[in-house]
């Protein structure tokens, strides 16, 4: 089981290897959504967020905020990989999932570009 720090390190490495410039603990405040993203590339609008269950952790997203972000992701406005810390088994699994997520981001962006051209 990976803890949040270990998981974020894996994700930062994978995202950066795919060409993103991810920074850690970036304040995100857009519309009704305000939280500190565990990893965020402000230019590409791609990042990740670890949902923790520790008591008193106020940085996490609320269900309403996740719903708002999900709608914006479906529109292609931003892409945030959401990880429930209880579901992370190994670094390999996390890396595999992150690669597939970034593949999907790329696919969606390509499709949007084709549609607009």
């Amino acid at each position, binding site marked *: 089981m990976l803890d949040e720090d270990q998981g974020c390190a894996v994700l930062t490495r994978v995202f950066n290897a795919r060409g993103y410039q991810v920074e850690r603990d970036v304040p995100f405040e857009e519309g009704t959504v305000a939280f500190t993203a565990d990893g965020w590339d402000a230019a590409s609008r791609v990042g990740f967020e670890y949902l923790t269950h520790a008591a008193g952790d106020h940085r996490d997203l609320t269900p309403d905020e996740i719903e708002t972000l*999900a709608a914006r*992701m479906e529109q292609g406005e931003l*892409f*945030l*990989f*959401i*990880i*429930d810390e209880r*579901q*992370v088994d190994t670094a390999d*699994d*996390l890396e*595999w*999932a992150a690669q*597939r*997520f970034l593949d*999907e981001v790329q696919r969606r962006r390509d499709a949007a570009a084709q549609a607009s051209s």
Partner: protein
Amino acid sequence: MSQRWVDAQEVMRLARAQIPVLMAERRRIQAASAQHQVQLKALHGEIYKAWEYLATVLVPGIVPENLEWASRLLSLPPIGAQAVQAAMVQDRDRLQATMANLDDNDDYVHREARLNACSIHLTELAESIAPLQDALSLYHSLPHWDELLDSGYGTDAYAGKWYTLSYYQHWKYGDQAVAALGEQFGVKTFAELRARYEQEKAAWDQLVTSRTEYQRQQHAVQSAVQQYTEAERHLANLASRHLSRVRGVVIEHLSPLGRDQLAKMLASYETGLVALKRLDGLEAKYRYLEITHQRWVLEPAAGIEKALRKAQRDLVKLQRPKHVYRRFPSADIERRFMDRQPKWDKRWTRYQDSRTRLIGFDDYGTYDFDDATPWWSVMTGDAVKARFIPEVAVYYEHRSATKQHSQEDHEQQAFAAVASAADYDDGRDDFDDMS
């Protein structure tokens, strides 16, 4: 007069020597306690049998004459002939009704055919269920299989979101499942694998439902057969069961009554009186064994334990440097370490002698309910004095007072002479001050 002193080394030597003596006494106490429990258990069984025997002589049979006589003698209407006869008729009618109902019950009427059919079906079902069970076990042995099923993965109902980790995990687990079983089952996607599983699971569910139904039918038939057999047996034993019940009512009625009251009730019935004497004697014997064990074994045991603890504690304490030059009054030490073996032996002799006499006693017929002499005196011949038993103390006091006021009474004189000759001591219990 100057006081004499004993040094710590001497106290330690005495304590060291005392410990094995105390341990040996402790073992003797433990052995006596174990034997006591065995004897009590045996006696408890004898008392139970004595009650049964008393009830048997009071109600020898279920015939009306016996019942009417016992009912009047014991002032117990529920065991009168009419009441018992009514209870038997009611019981018989109930049992016959049960059997008649079962004779109309399809499960009972066709019991053999149904049991055979159930047995055949259950065997066939077991043969069909086994391979499906093995196949289902294969699926369930896959990691996260249940999670994939619960999430709906591989169906249109799957609600996983592409931006969450769990979505990709289900993807990976699904691929692993197909890699593990796909070739064996001829499927290429998780949806196909899942469909195959659900098909096999549905077949398994259907077979298990059938099995449950046949098991229920089998149980219903077996239950009907058992009910019929029991009713038949109870009907065949109707008289003996009610005789046992009546005797039970008699015992329940007599148990709380005082033995003197019972003796008066049975005064005109010699056989009943003899049975009562045996019962009363056995109960007294049980009581005496408990009281003497408490007095002559358990109470001294506490003193032995206390002395042992003190000796062992002193051995540790007096080895410390600050106690090396400590001295103790000689008189105290002599009193503490005096040889108590003779006193213990005397107590054990008293204990064993009284027990031998109590347990060996079997002449219950000699007891007289009208005489004040307690069972203790009858059983032991007063060879061992036990004033700590309340009824014995009362008897001795009464006898002593009578003796003082009736010096001319020859019978009392003779009694006293016999008792005196048999006494081992002055009758006081003076043992075991170990402190």
